């Protein structure tokens, strides 16, 4: 029984390693895509949206697979949800200054 468990565990890690390699290749391709898109000199709003979208996809892959977020405990998700909420508020603060922040005066 013990030997079987060990074999299962090793097979599980092998599966993970294959996923790591796949994610690595995907990240490399997305890095090239990011640089290639920047060569088109798109209008700033579109360029920002596309670059941040690709970066978000890459970041999600790193978080989900390398940081094992796909299989984490609920407490970690709760901590990250709270962090994400505060992060969004933080990044929204500069937006409040648009049009000289007339609506928050």
């Amino acid at each position, binding site marked *: 029984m013990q030997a079987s468990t060990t074999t299962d565990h090793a097979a599980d890690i092998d599966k993970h390693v294959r996923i*790591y390699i796949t994610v690595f290749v995907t990240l490399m391709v997305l890095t090239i895509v990011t640089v290639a898109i920047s060569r088109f000199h798109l209008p700033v709003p579109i360029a920002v949206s596309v670059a941040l979208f690709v970066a978000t996809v*890459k970041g999600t892959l*790193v978080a989900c697979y*390398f*940081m094992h977020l796909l299989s984490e405990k609920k407490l*970690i998700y709760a*901590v990250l949800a*709270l962090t994400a909420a505060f992060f969004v508020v*933080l990044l929204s603060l500069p937006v409040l200054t*648009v049009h000289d922040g007339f609506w928050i005066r």
Partner: protein
Amino acid sequence: MDIPYTVEVRPDTGLTNGKIGIWLFLASEVMLFGALFASYILIRTGATTWPRGDTILNVPLATFNTIVLISSSVTMVMAWASLKRNRFGTFRMYMGATILLGGVFLVVKYFEYSHKFELGLFPSTNNFLAIYFTLTGLHMLHVIGGMAVNAYFWGPGAKLWKTNPEWFTNRVEHSGLFWHFVDLVWIFLFPTLYLL
């Protein structure tokens, strides 16, 4: 007295103390970099003109560094996987590669910074360079910190493997989480500073 819950999980959290500790630390790091990203947005949206990063910065070098850092994330996770497979020698190889790749990243950054200084481009030159040096400088400090921890686990800290392999594996996983976070920050810094 031994540190509690380094290997077995705490019944109330379902996690080891180290795991919840590193994630709470990373949450604070998100806010640290978030504050600087918010400053970047504020400064950029308030500026009448803003240079494209690729007109001032070296995109091929930064692309190379992106590849280096992503590769180091893979070697880091492979180092952890090696410990899970009970292969300490392989762990040492992958962890060594991670430290080496971190070093390559810093060397490239050194050349980038030196070139800017030679051209008379300093943080005080303009807002773009001020935010560039602040963000990349802080990120570099994180790379140095991560390398120091990884070097400890590659060297003197590795003796824990002989006495408590599970605890050692968990510690490597936690330092890996920090290292992946450093990679994740760079994934956003690269397009934000160099390509937009």
